[in-house]
Structures are given as C-alpha cells and as structure tokens.
C-alpha cells in the first residue's frame, strides 16, 4: 500500500443493507490488508482485489488487473483485418458473437460497405442467442457466489441448448469466428430456424422457472437488496454501460439509442428496474435487468425468425471482400454487449491490410473501475455480491 489510512474509531456504525446496520462498540480495531484473489472463486477469473478491512467492514478496495493480459491491441497491429476476428472472440469468451459483431461493424464502416439484409438478420439471431447464453452464465454464477447451487445446474442445462445450436451452425461451442467482414462464415443449415423457434418456445417457461427458483428466493433477496447502490449520475460519470447502467435506472441501450444492424426494425423494450422488488441501483437491480433482458432477447429472436427473408441459394460469402484495405481514416464503432458497451477504435493508414491501431474499449474494464466506490463500507461477503453483480469476464477486462 502506497498510502496509509489513519484514524481507528472505537465505535462505528456501518450500513450493510437497506434496513440493516452493524454497531461495533469499544473495540480497539486495527486495519488489516487481505487479498481477495487472484485465485478466488468469486472473482470469476484471475482478478486480485486488495481489501483494507476493519473487522468485517471494507475500508478500501483496490483491484489489480492484468493477470490475463495478452495485449490484444499489439496482436491486432500484426494481423490482417480478417485475422483479428478470432482474437476478438477471446476477449469476452462468454459473448464472442457480440464482440465479433462490434469489431466487424467498425471495419465495415471504414470500408463503407453495405451488408445483405439476410446477413443482418442472421447476425442478430446469433448475437441474441449469445446474449441469452451470456446472461445465463452471469445469473447462474451469481447464484453460485451467494450460495444457491441448484439454479446453476438448471441454467447450465438450458445453456447447453444454445451452445449446441451454435455448434451446429459453425462448429465451435464458444469461440466462433462466425461473423465476417461483409458476411458470415456459414449459411443457416436447413431447419436451423425451426430449431431456434423450438428453443424459444421451450425456453420461455424455463425463464419463469429460473426467476421463481432464484430471483424470488427470500435468501437471495436478503443478500442482494440494497447492497452496493450505484446512483445514476455516478454510473454515468464512471462510464458504466449495459446492465450496470440500466440497473441504476438509466434507460440507455445502444440497440435503441445508437441503433445498428436491423435493431431499429425490431420491437423490444429497454429494461430498467421499477423499484418494487429492488432499490434502484443495487445489486438486485442489476440482476433483475439481466433476467428481464432474456425475455427481450427471446422476443427479438422470434421477430427475426418471422421477418428473415428466405433464399434457398443464398451465399453468405457474396459480399465478403477478398482483400481488405480500407481508405485512410479512423472509426469508433460500438455494440451493446451483454456486459456493456464494447467499442473498437480502429485507425487505417490506407496503405496496408493491417490496422494501424486497434483499440478495444471493454465494457467490463470500465464497469469494474467503479468497484472501489461500491465496496467501501460494505462487509467482505457483500464485496462478493457486488463483484458478482458487476458480472466481469477477465478475458475482456485484461484483453
């Protein structure tokens, strides 16, 4: 620790929940520094949080990142534009499709090319399937962090259906390299749409079941309600996005507010908590946003299946450029990932087939930066609840 924290009070009062306080009297306390991670199940990967604690209460939390740093940006400068796509998969490995989509949009904007309408529908279907799968992991592991094991098994069973569908589509279960510049790698197999429709029909009641099993659980609500409240203005100033920002009651979704692909044609709601079950901005709100977003994603998939143009002789590679050499320029393109805004700032020098600079703006990285603010004054066990509700993937935080 570079700085020293002084002042040891004898009596202290700390708020740990909505109506819950801890009073400690006449205690000679001493601050203790403990490390949470990098090998800790609730940090969802290799994150180390240095906690300065006063008894059970956290005085200061400092995250240390970089354990999974692979310098994606340096790699991207040595690769052709197409070859970068598999690397973007490995950033947020739970939402690979969405990250690919954002990267590919950046290059398409630089090239100024139009993508066939059917391709856009295919991309949105896989992106929304991926969003469901990603939220499922977020919700399941959040339950696991807090001590609910059963929902994890139920949710993973349903996630398997999505992974099987995507495996059928492109041969990979997690890291797809499916969305290409100007197209996609494989056309939908015959009957794929019907299978997706069957999945939507199958999964809707299962979401209700999941809500009943986890979200309406009294113990779960006790652990999350009123913990780690993030006010809306703080969330915006810290650059939070995705469910983190919507959990604070800000109706902001890039699919609506900065529309891309065919999202403007589709009907769906931007979910914000109503404050009935949760206190707006707390960990439970962020969890609720993820739960209700699954319903919205199912809605989007259903609409895409209905509206998607049929074409038996469709070639998904028709608009794929053979050699990508964009004119000199720069672009910042972004997409709404399950974990917030993912943006790619790409500079092309106009001379080479490799990006001059490719900066990835990661949603988790920015969302995690608000952790010291949220953890302060909470119990150590609540830091676990807060960290789980931020929903980080260290592959994306460290890139």
């Amino acid at each position, binding site marked *: 620790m570079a700085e020293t924290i002084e002042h040891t009070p004898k009596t202290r009062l700390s708020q740990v929940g909505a109506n819950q306080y801890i009073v400690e009297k006449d205690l000679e306390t001493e601050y203790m520094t403990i490390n949470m991670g990098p090998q800790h199940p609730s940090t969802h990967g290799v994150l180390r949080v240095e906690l300065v604690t006063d008894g059970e209460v956290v005085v200061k939390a400092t995250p240390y990142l970089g354990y999974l740093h692979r310098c994606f940006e340096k790699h991207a400068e040595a690769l052709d534009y197409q070859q970068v796509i598999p690397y973007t998969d490995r950033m947020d490995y739970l939402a690979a499709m969405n990250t690919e989509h954002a990267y590919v949009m950046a290059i398409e904007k630089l090239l100024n090319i139009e993508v066939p309408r059917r391709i856009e529908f295919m991309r949105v279907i896989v992106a929304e399937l991926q969003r469901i799968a990603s939220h499922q992991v977020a919700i399941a592991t959040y339950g696991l962090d807090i001590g609910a094991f059963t929902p994890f098994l139920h949710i993973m069973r349903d996630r398997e259906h999505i992974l099987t569908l995507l495996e059928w589509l492109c041969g990979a279960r997690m890291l797809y390299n499916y969305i290409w510049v100007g197209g996609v790698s494989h056309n939908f197999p015959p009957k794929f749409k019907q299978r997706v429709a069957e999945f939507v029909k199958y999964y809707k009641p299962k979401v209700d079941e999941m809500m009943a099993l986890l979200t309406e659980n009294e113990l779960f609500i006790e652990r999350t309600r009123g913990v780690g409240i993030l006010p809306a203005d703080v969330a915006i100033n810290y650059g939070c996005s995705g469910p983190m920002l919507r959990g604070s009651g800000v109706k902001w979704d890039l699919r609506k507010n900065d529309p891309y692909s065919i999202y403007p044609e589709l009907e769906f709601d931007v979910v914000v908590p109503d404050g009935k079950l949760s206190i707006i901005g707390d960990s439970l709100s962020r969890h609720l946003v993820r739960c209700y977003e699954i319903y919205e994603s199912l809605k989007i998939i259903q609409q895409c299946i209905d509206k998607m143009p049929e074409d038996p002789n469709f070639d998904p590679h028709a608009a794929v450029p053979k050699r990508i050499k964009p004119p000199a*320029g720069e672009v910042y393109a972004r997409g709404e990932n399950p974990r917030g805004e993912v943006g790619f700032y790409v500079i092309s020098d106009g001379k080479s087939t490799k990006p001059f600079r490719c900066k990835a703006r990661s949603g988790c990285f920015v969302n995690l930066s608000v952790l010291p603010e949220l953890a302060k004054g909470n119990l150590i066990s609540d830091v676990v609840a807060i960290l789980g509700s931020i929903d980080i993937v260290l592959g994306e935080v460290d890139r």
Partner: protein
Amino acid sequence: MPKLTPEQIHAIIREEFGTEAVSDLDNSRTMPNFTVLDHSLWQPIAYFMRTDERLKFDYLACLSGVDYNDGTLGVVYNLESLAAYQHKIAVKLKCTKEKNVVPSVAEIWRTAEWHEREAYDLVGIIFDGHPDLRRILCPEDWEGHPLRKDYKVQEYYHGIKVPY
C-alpha cells in the same frame, strides 16, 4: 434543446475559447473530430463540455492512446451526451515523444482514471494531474510501453526469457 451537429459543437467551443484553442473540424464520415492545440486549455474545455447547458458531454465512451509513428503521440477522447441530447464528438490531443505529457481529465470524467492508466501503460503518455498514475495491465516492473511502434521486448523478465 436539440441534438447538435459536430459543426455546431465545434462552433460553440470556438466561440467560448477563441479560434486559437482548437483546430478546424475534421468532419469525416466515420468520426467527426477536432484537435485541442493549446494543452493548458484542455482541462477548462473538458469541464466546459461536461457542464455547459448546450453540450452536456457527461459520458466519456472511450479514451485511446496512439503512437502515430512520426514522433508524435496522441490521445483520442470519444465523448457523448448520454443523459441529455445524445450527440457525440471526438476530441484529440497530440504531444511529442520527448515531451509526452498531456493534462489529465480524471477529475472531470472519473472513467478516465483507468483509461489514462492504460494509455500510460501501453503507449507511455504521462497524464499530468492524474491521482494514481501506475501501470494497470502490464506488471509494475515491465520495461517499455508495448504499443509504441518502436517497442522492443525485453530479453529477460525475472529470469524468464520473454520472446519465445
């Protein structure tokens, strides 16, 4: 108040800080941007952009450090008015490799704190006034800044051979 075009935003800033403070608007198709020429004015401009009633740029979407490979480094800020008008613009700042210092905006947009640490770590730009400028992604005792175009990786790191 309506959503402003990049021209209008640029005009408001020139009107407030004079024509010398910022460059002409580069109204490109993909990313309209302008460059702040006078470094000492960047913090006042940033504060003005965040608080002015007409602009309200309350959201710093992205901050990227760039090595332009001609002896200059740059920082690119992608700003957006999230809560109010939803207009956006990009602002650039440039410095030389020898004098690699730019003013920090971590006090204006708190999200810049980690972004600036990342730009310091990978590109080697020093942010004057940053509360805690340390490396964030690379180890603290790493040598050099990996995203510099002339970066050479060190031979050994704690006895481990680095280039393999």
